[in-house]
C-alpha cells in the first residue's frame, strides 16, 4: 500500500468541524434533491393528466358543435389541430407515466412544438371569423395541456411556455380584430377570458406543484432531524465516523508505506508535515467529536432550524433530556420557526439550556432540574401555533412571557441525574 496525501485537509475547520460535516450533508442531500423533489408528485401529475383529459373532451365537444354549424372556413385545419393536440396529449401522458422523473429536453421540445402546431392550425381555422376568443378550441385547450408535464419539468420553463402562449394569443387576437364597429366590451371580454383560460391552469398548476415540493422538502427536513431524538447523550453526528474512517485510513496508509520502506526515513519535511496535520486532525476528531448533543446536531443539520435557531448549551445538558422531552423541544422549535420561509425571515429563536442552579427548587430524588429558556424575536405571543403549548408541556413545566414584544418561554425540565444512573 502506498501513501497518498488525503484529498482534503480538515485543519482549516478546527472549530466548525461539525459545520463542515453539515455542509457535506447538505451537498449530499442537494445531489439527491432532484430526485427527492419528485417525491409524491407523480400522484399530482396523474390528477393533472385527468384534468387535461377532461378539458380536451370539453374542447372537442365545442369543436364538434362548431363543425356541425359549419362555421369553419378551414375545417380541415381545425380538425388537424385537434388530431395533433390529441396525439400530443396521449403521447405526453404515456411518456410522463413511463419516464416518471424528469422529461428529457428533446421530448419537452417535441411536446412544445406539437402544442405550437396545434395552436397555429386552430388559429388558421378560425382566422376569418375574427373572434378567436369564442371560436378557438384546440388553441385554448393547448394551454391547459402544459399541466401534463408540470411535475416533470421546471416551474420556470412552464411559466415561460404559458406566458409565450398567452402573449402569442393576445397578439394573434390583436391582429385578427373584426371591423371597428364590432369592437365592443362584449367582444373584448371573451377574448380576455379565453387567454386567461389558456394561461391560468398552467400558472395555478405550477403554484400547486411548487408548494407541494416545498412541503415535501420541509417535511423531509423535519423527519431527518427527528432521528436525533433517539441519539445518545453525546453524539458525533452524521458523517463523523466517515471522517474518522478517512483519517484512520490515511494514517494506516502512511504508516504502512513507512513500514514497507516505500517512504524513506527520516521523512522529508513535506511528509513530516502531513503526518503532523494527520495527528492533529485525528486528535481533534477523537476528543471533540463526543462533545456535541443531539440538539446541536438537529439544529446544524436542519436547513430550516439552522437558519433561525441559535443554541446555547455550554455544558451539553440537552443530552440529558429523554426522547419525549427532546421530541417536545424539537417540535416547539419547529413550530416557532415554522413560518420562516413563507412569512418573515426576521424570526429568530434562541434556545438556552442550563446552567443548572442547584438547590433553588426542590426536586425529586435522582432528578436534576435543567432550566431551558427559549427567547425569540419576531414571534408574537398570539400568533404562535397553539399546539406549541402541548409540545412544551412534554418538555417540562413552562411559563411564557412576552419580552421585547416577542415570545419568551422558560421551561423547568426535570431529567434523570446522570450521577445516579
Amino acid at each position, binding site marked *: 500500500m502506498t501513501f497518498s496525501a488525503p484529498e482534503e485537509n480538515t485543519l482549516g475547520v478546527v472549530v466548525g468541524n461539525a459545520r463542515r460535516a453539515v455542509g457535506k450533508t447538505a451537498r449530499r442531500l442537494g445531489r439527491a434533491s432532484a430526485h427527492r423533489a419528485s*417525491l409524491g408528485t407523480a*400522484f399530482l401529475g396523474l390528477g393533472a393528466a385527468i384534468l387535461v383529459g377532461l378539458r380536451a373532451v370539453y374542447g372537442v365537444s365545442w369543436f364538434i358543435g362548431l363543425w356541425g354549424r359549419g362555421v369553419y372556413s378551414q375545417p380541415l385545419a381545425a380538425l388537424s389541430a385537434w388530431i395533433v393536440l390529441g396525439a400530443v396529449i396521449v403521447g405526453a401522458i404515456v411518456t410522463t407515466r413511463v419516464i416518471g422523473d424528469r422529461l428529457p429536453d428533446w421530448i419537452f421540445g417535441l411536446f412544445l412544438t406539437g402544442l405550437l402546431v396545434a395552436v397555429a392550425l386552430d388559429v388558421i381555422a378560425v382566422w376569418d371569423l375574427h373572434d378567436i376568443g369564442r371560436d378557438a378550441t384546440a388553441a385554448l385547450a393547448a394551454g391547459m395541456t402544459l399541466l401534463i408535464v408540470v411535475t416533470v419539468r421546471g416551474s420556470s420553463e412552464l411559466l415561460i411556455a404559458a406566458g409565450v402562449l398567452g402573449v402569442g394569443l393576445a397578439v394573434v387576437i390583436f391582429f385578427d380584430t373584426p371591423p371597428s364597429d364590432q369592437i365592443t366590451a362584449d367582444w373584448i371580454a371573451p377574448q380576455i377570458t379565453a387567454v386567461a383560460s389558456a394561461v391560468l391552469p398552467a400558472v395555478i398548476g405550477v403554484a400547486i406543484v411548487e408548494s407541494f415540493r416545498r*412541503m415535501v422538502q420541509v417535511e423531509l427536513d423535519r423527519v431527518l432531524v427527528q*432521528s436525533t431524538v433517539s441519539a445518545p447523550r453525546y453524539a458525533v453526528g452524521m458523517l463523523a465516523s466517515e471522517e474518522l474512517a478517512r483519517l484512520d485510513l490515511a494514517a494506516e496508509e502512511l504508516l504502512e508505506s513507512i513500514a514497507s*520502506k516505500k517512504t524513506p526515513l527520516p521523512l522529508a519535511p513535506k*511528509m513530516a508535515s502531513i503526518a503532523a496535520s494527520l495527528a492533529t486532525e485525528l486528535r481533534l476528531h477523537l476528543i471533540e467529536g*463526543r462533545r456535541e448533543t443531539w440538539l446541536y446536531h438537529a439544529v446544524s443539520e436542519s436547513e430550516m432550524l439552522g437558519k433561525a435557531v441559535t443554541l446555547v448549551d455550554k455544558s451539553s445538558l440537552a443530552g440529558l433530556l429523554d426522547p419525549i422531552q427532546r421530541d417536545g423541544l424539537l417540535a416547539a422549535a419547529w413550530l416557532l420557526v415554522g413560518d420562516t420561509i413563507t412569512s418573515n425571515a426576521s424570526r429568530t429563536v434562541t434556545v438556552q439550556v442550563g446552567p443548572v442552579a442547584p438547590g433553588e427548587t426542590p426536586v425529586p430524588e435522582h432528578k436534576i432540574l435543567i432550566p431551558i429558556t427559549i427567547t425569540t424575536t419576531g414571534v408574537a405571543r398570539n400568533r404562535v401555533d397553539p399546539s406549541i403549548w402541548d409540545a412544551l408541556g412534554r418538555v417540562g413545566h413552562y411559563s411564557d412571557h412576552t419580552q421585547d414584544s416577542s415570545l419568551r418561554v422558560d421551561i423547568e425540565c426535570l431529567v434523570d441525574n446522570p450521577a445516579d444512573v
Partner: protein
Amino acid sequence: MDLITKERDRLLQRTARVYGLSFTVVALLCFVLPGAVSMTALFISLPLFVVVGIAQFRMGISRSPAWLAVALIAGLAIVVVACTVGARPSQAGFTAVVELAAASLAAVGLVLTSSAARIAALIIVFLIVGATLLLLTSDLQAPLRTAGIYVLGWVLPVLIAIWISAGVPQVAKRIASIGRAHRAERQASEIEAQRRQGARLLHDTVLATLTLLAHSGVGVTPDALRQQAGDDAKLLRQLRLGTGPTPSAAGGGAAEGAVGTETSPVPIIEEPVLGTTLESVKQRFGRMGLQVSWHGTGQVLLPSDILDAFLLALAECLENVRRHSGVTEAHVTITEDSKMVRAMVTDSGVGFEITDIDEAKLGFTESVVARLRDVGGNARLFSAPGSGTTVVLEVPRGDATTEGGA
C-alpha cells in the same frame, strides 16, 4: 400534533391564494371594460375588488375563516351591486360577474374541505353565492347554463383540494420510511464512530507514532520506527476490516442510549497486541529510547473505559517526558486506595514554568486532563525549570464514576 397536516393546510391556502387572485384579476379586467356595468356600480365595486384581493392574499397565510368571510361578502356585494345599481350589465359585465362568482370566489373551496364544519360552511356559501348569481342574472343568460358553469367552477377547486389531500398521506408515508432509514443510518454511523473512538489505546499509539513522524523521527532509530509503524498500520487495518459485525454485546450501551465512554467495542484487536496492562506502554517507550521504571502495583484492574483513559493519559505524559525533558528515564509510581488509582510520573529533566503550559503543551489539557475528567478523574502537574516534572494522574476505581460503565 400532526405537522404534515399543517403543511398540507398551508399548501392548500397558498393554492387558494393563487387561484383566487388569478381569477379576481380576470374578473376585474372584464369588469372595467367600458360599458360592462354602469359607472355608479363600477365606482362602488372597485374598492370591493381591492377588499377581495386583500382577503384572498391573506387567505394564503392565515387559516382564519375571517378572511374567507371577508372575501365572500365583498365578492357577493360586487355581484349584487353590478346587477342592481344603474343599468343592467352588458355581456362583458355578466362575464365579469360569472368569473367572480364561479371562479374567484370558488377558491375558498380549496381550504374548506379539511373538516366537517368547513365542508358544511362550504355548502352554505356555495348555495348563497349560487342563488344570488342565478336570481340576479336570469335575464342575461339561460339560468341552467349559468348554473352549469357555476357548479363546474366550484367543483373544480374542491376536487383539486381533495386530490392534494389524498396525495399528502402517501407522501407522508414515504417520507416516514426515509426517516426510518435515516435513523438507522444515524445509529450505524454513531456506533461506527464510537467503535473507532472507543479504540482509544490504538489511536493513542497511532498518534504517538504520527507525532514522532511529524518530527521526522528524530531520536529514534529508523528500524524501531519502522517496526512501530508496521504494528500501528496492522492495528488500523484490523480496526478497518472489523467494521462489519460489531458485537452487539459490546455495542449494547449505544443502542440503549446510555453512552459515555462505554465498554470498548474492539477488545479483540487491542488485547493481544497492547494488552491492558502497563507493560505494553513500558515496552513501547523502551523501544523509543525512554526507560520507564515502574513502582508499586504492576497490574491495574479497572473498567475498560477508565483504564483506557488512564493508560492514555499516562502514555501522553511519558511522551511529553520523552520529547521535552531531555532525559531518558522516567519513573511511574502506581498507588491505589479504595476509591482512586493514582499514577505519579516523575522525571529529573529540564522542567518548565507551569504558567507557560497553555502555549507550550497545548496537548496536555486536551488529551490528558479532558480524557481523565471524562471518566471522573483528574490530573495535576508540578514543575519548575531545572528541577524536573511530576504529573499526578488519578482515576476512580469504577463504582463511583459519573457516567459510562453500566
